[in-house]
């Protein structure tokens, strides 16, 4: 009895299991991806780091402008690794899955996107971790479905319309109605939008060959007051 008690007391001494690094990966990639893609036959996991990209420093510095907010100096650094999952159904690419961490009001928020491999459209948006008073509202399927079909272009267009034509009916993101939130939940809603945008910006760099840059340039020109 005593011996067992001593052994069990060792549980108090043992260091906790290794927690995830600052990067954002799926907890159970094989199971999670199979859940998202029942027809999945295989998947590829690629680690992406700015340090491995050509002109990585410049690309990293450019994220701030594209995101419209500062990067966290501790948790959104140049060294932060990102994991891109490419899902295959036979030989066909079925989807790209990628997650990012964004600091929420009371803890980290992990925002994952499943995007179309050819168009970059969001097929599904979901959270892996979200501790928030707004968690129920934000995890709501109907709310998350509002982002389906959007691309990074829609986020840049939102910036463009905000500067050049506020309230435009063509502003798809502007039409997204936030779920009912109490004031404590608003920061996490904002962090969620930031997470989706950051995720799409990184995917544009890592996967889509910066195809949405013209939309960014147009938005920036509009913001500077110069009509395209």
């Amino acid at each position, binding site marked *: 009895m005593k*011996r*067992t*008690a*001593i*052994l*069990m*007391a*060792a*549980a*108090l*001494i*043992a*260091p*906790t*299991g290794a*927690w*995830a690094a*600052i990067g954002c990966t*799926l*907890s159970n990639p094989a199971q*999670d991806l199979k*859940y*998202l893609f029942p027809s999945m036959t295989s998947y590829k996991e690629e680690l992406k780091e700015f340090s491995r990209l050509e002109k990585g420093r410049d690309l990293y510095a450019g994220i701030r402008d594209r995101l419209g907010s500062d990067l*966290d*100096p*501790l*948790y959104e650094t140049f060294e932060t690794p990102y994991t891109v999952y490419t899902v295959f159904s036979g030989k066909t690419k079925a989807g790209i899955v990628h997650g990012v*961490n964004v*600091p929420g*009001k*009371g*803890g*980290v928020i*992990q925002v*994952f996107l499943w995007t179309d491999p050819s168009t970059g459209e969001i097929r599904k948006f*979901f*959270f*892996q*971790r*979200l*501790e*928030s*008073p707004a*968690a129920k509202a934000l*995890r709501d*399927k109907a709310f998350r479905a509002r982002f389906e079909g959007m691309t990074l272009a829609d986020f840049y267009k939102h910036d463009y319309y905000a500067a050049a034509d506020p309230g435009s009916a063509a502003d798809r993101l502007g039409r997204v109605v936030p779920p009912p939130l109490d004031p*404590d939940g608003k920061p996490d809603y904002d962090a969620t939008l930031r997470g989706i945008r950051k995720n799409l910006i990184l995917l544009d760099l890592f996967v889509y060959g910066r195809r949405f840059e013209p939309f960014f340039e147009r938005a920036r020109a509009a913001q500077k007051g110069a009509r395209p």
Partner: protein
Amino acid sequence: MNQPILMRYTTLAFRNLRRRRVRTALTVAGVALAVMVGVALGGFMLGYRGAIDRSIDMLGFQVMIMAKGCPYEAATMMLKGGTGLLYLPADTFDKVRSDQAVESITPVFVGVAQKEGSGIRDGAKEAAFTVISGVEPASYLVMKPWLRLKAGAGFENGRWFKPESEDEIVLGFEAAEYEQRKVGDDFYATIQPAGKPDALRRRFKVVGVLERTGTQDDGTVFMPIRAARLAFNRPNELTILGIKLKDFNSFKLREFENRWLKLPEVQVVGLQQVKTTLIGLVATAQTMIAAVAAIAILVALLGVVNAILMSVYERTGEIGIMKALGARRGDIFQLVWLETLILCLLGSLVGSAAAVVGAGVVERAIRSLADLGVSGSIVSITPKVLAYAVLGSTALGCFAGLYPAWRASSMRPVDAIREGASQ
């Protein structure tokens, strides 16, 4: 011509070994492999014991007093986020504190807070939890003086919470990293107060983040013990008493234990006992491992004997001629024996070098096979381990070389020349 005799034997032995390069290389590789396994396992035994020592020393306490059965709950807590921790009456602290043998004592209240599950499936979230430790910083830091608050960007003005505070917390290094928290940030945790039907989401303020320690403290959320008790609705309870004794030895510990085991709800656990038990458990596994290493060494040894014997048989005629030309039994014996020694020495050097280079790989392999429950490096290949390996291999080489050397030296010149000619 003026070379010392040993040098001449050595040169000759090397020349003989070079004549069958592949066989020599394979024999050396066999010995190297066995030595590498032996060194790596020796390093693991040494390193793991050191890691256990470090982990237990980093707990800070010499003795813990906890509720009977509590360790089971602690294990559950560690593994599954169980909420059924057992608690001591808070007045146990006052009773034990008055014990003359106690140098310092700190009360700890441990609670398990629920976290929003981590998972992508709608409606099916995996359970997640975080360990909250209610402590008194003044006495806790006496036990763990190495706990330091992080400084620098994001952690400016970090401090320990005020004892009367109800919403201030200090995060362990990994808890902060996992939740991406900085000093001044909020931190949410859902707490189930004892005896209440509904869990409450609480918002805390991070006032400090600790430097990494490599212990359980890294993943812990610290808050004032009074606030923790209130949050979990256990105002008059605590989980552990951490104690340092004025004189710490097994006799004093037994005396202390006997004094406090009279309380029906209490059990006293000396960390030395935990250490001994853990090491005892590991020793069983280590015996098995040592047996495997011994078999590997035996196989290598047989390989060496076999290689040298083959070499002797192949050179039967040559040995006969050497004897006919005046070589004595001792000369032949020394020559063959030296060849065996060279093989074993070379193998031990190569194996030792490979073990040093591959220590990281070995560690990763061991960790991938089992959760060892300790932090820090668990493979410690010291110069002493290497010296033992080289000396041991050389000694075994001496032994392995005896039979082939005796066999070679016992040949009669005429028979050997005849047999060699017929080969």
